[in-house]
């Protein structure tokens, strides 16, 4: 007797599934409007101590020490660009790893897994709403922060925006690999917090990586995000960059292809193992 599949997955059904996941997350997000307000003000809260700390290091409002490392004394614009990019980085990290943990806790992961939808697509779907809401809240945050601390982009905004695309797509590869680790370790919060915090920190979200202790610089230079932060700031704020801007963009494109492939490979291998062990629903 031949086993016959009742479902007929096509490209259109996969797209529909993606849309349904995003719509569900959209509804959940706006169900708690306080979270949207929090997303706007959280980054401002995080950079406020740096604003005042910068004052403690400045003479007559000039952070000359910072300028010697970065090529700009406007440390708040430098940090605000890093903050906006960090918001998106967190979205991809959180969006997938954390979504899996939420589904585990709610007890729906196993039933979702039984649907005839690509599992990577389920993960990607969980980030779509987050990306959109992050874009909205980051824009509002930037307007408020500009009024409070000042934000002066003097360079090429379009080139800066285009540079973020390969960087973010490459992060999806990272996200797949992290989602795989969540499937094994189950408790995702610490792992996601620590790893994203470390990666952001060492790739220079808040400071020029040239100022890192000499033993940390090689680690920083190995992280593709370092070149992402550096290139976006180079385009937008005309800071001095580690490599020529075009070389940094090329590196980001190579990073995108490599991590997407590697992340998907790791995820499928781990997912098969978890299914074999039968631990998918455990949390």
């Amino acid at each position, binding site marked *: 007797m031949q086993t016959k599949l009742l479902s007929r997955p096509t490209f259109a059904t996969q797209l529909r599934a993606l849309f349904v996941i995003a719509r569900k997350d959209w509804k959940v997000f706006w169900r708690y409007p306080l*979270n949207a307000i929090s997303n706007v003000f959280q980054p401002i809260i995080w950079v406020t101590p740096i604003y005042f700390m910068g004052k403690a290091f400045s003479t007559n409002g000039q*952070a000359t020490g910072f300028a010697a490392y970065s090529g700009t004394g406007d440390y708040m614009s430098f940090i605000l660009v890093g903050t906006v990019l960090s918001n998106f980085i967190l979205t991809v990290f959180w969006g997938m790893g954390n979504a899996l943990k939420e589904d585990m806790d709610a007890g729906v992961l196993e039933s979702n897994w039984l649907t005839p939808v690509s599992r990577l697509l389920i993960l990607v779907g969980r980030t779509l709403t987050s990306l959109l809401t992050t874009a909205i809240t980051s824009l509002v945050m930037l307007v408020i922060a500009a009024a409070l601390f000042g934000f002066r982009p003097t360079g090429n905004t379009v080139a800066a925006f285009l540079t973020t695309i390969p960087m973010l797509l490459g992060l999806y590869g990272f996200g797949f690999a992290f989602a795989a680790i969540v499937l094994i370790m189950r408790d995702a919060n610490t792992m996601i917090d620590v790893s994203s915090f470390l990666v952001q920190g060492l790739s220079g979200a808040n*400071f020029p990586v040239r100022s890192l202790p000499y033993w940390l610089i090689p680690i920083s230079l190995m992280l593709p995000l370092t070149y992402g932060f550096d290139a976006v700031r180079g385009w937008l704020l005309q800071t001095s960059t580690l490599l020529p801007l075009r070389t940094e963009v090329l590196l980001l494109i190579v990073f995108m292809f490599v991590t997407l492939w590697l992340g998907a490979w790791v995820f499928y291998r781990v997912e098969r193992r978890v299914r074999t062990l039968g631990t998918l629903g455990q949390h």
Partner: protein
Amino acid sequence: MRSEMSIFSSLGKPGILSEIQAFIAITRREWTIFRRYPSWIIALLIWPLIFPMMYILTGRALSGPDGSGLAVFTKTTGATDFIGYIVIGTTVWMWQNIVLWDVGFSLRNEQMRGTLESNWLSPTWRFSYLLGHTGPQIISMAMFVLITAVEFGLLFGVKLHGSIWLAALVMIFSIPAVYGLGFAFASLVITLKEASAFVFLVRGLVMIFCGITFPISLLPGWMQSVATWLPQTYMIHAMRAAAFENASLTDLWPDLKALILFGIFWLTIGYLLFTWMERRARQSGAIGQY
């Protein structure tokens, strides 16, 4: 008739011993859950290091390659060890932050797991549910502070120029205010359900106003006034003075006095909010809803 009566009388016989037993059971359960996820070891080792590191590395960048910025910082703050200065501020912030999440969300987590309603039916003093969470939390936080001191001492050469015992005393005086706020939060969270935004608000206030990385004298006047109403301002000030400025008990007394008053205030508010929430939940029957 006799058998009918026995149906309505409580089967539980609450006494001091049974309350202590319940408290120990809750503490043991929390400890078991805490150990169930091995990632807590990573958290305990890594967080004390990486959170202050972000501010320390930013401070390093602001110092400049020739250290000219650092000279300005030393002149402004009077602190000779800028790493120690930042570590104290960020550690106090992390302590309050962890308590808000752990203690503040303890009842909410029970609600999400679906066990709060059944626990509520047991003949136990309900405040034990919060107190039971506090014991393991204080132990883990003491480990956290100890690890912070060891890591920054070994890796960054941060040395105490004051008294470790006075610094510990400041921490003990801070416990009622920090955990009282956690208790107040736990009741608020159970009523409002999705209250992460409130945690962000409170820890945000600490981050902006209490001078975790800078002296509050740099804040505008109105912000300095707000800072005087937050216990963490006194905690940070007293800890820095005890650890790095060789302050005596008399020097610390104004801060300790403020911490006692804040402690009494927040513990009272925490208990009153809990009783209010408990009554409200019983009347509305909303204890199991989420």
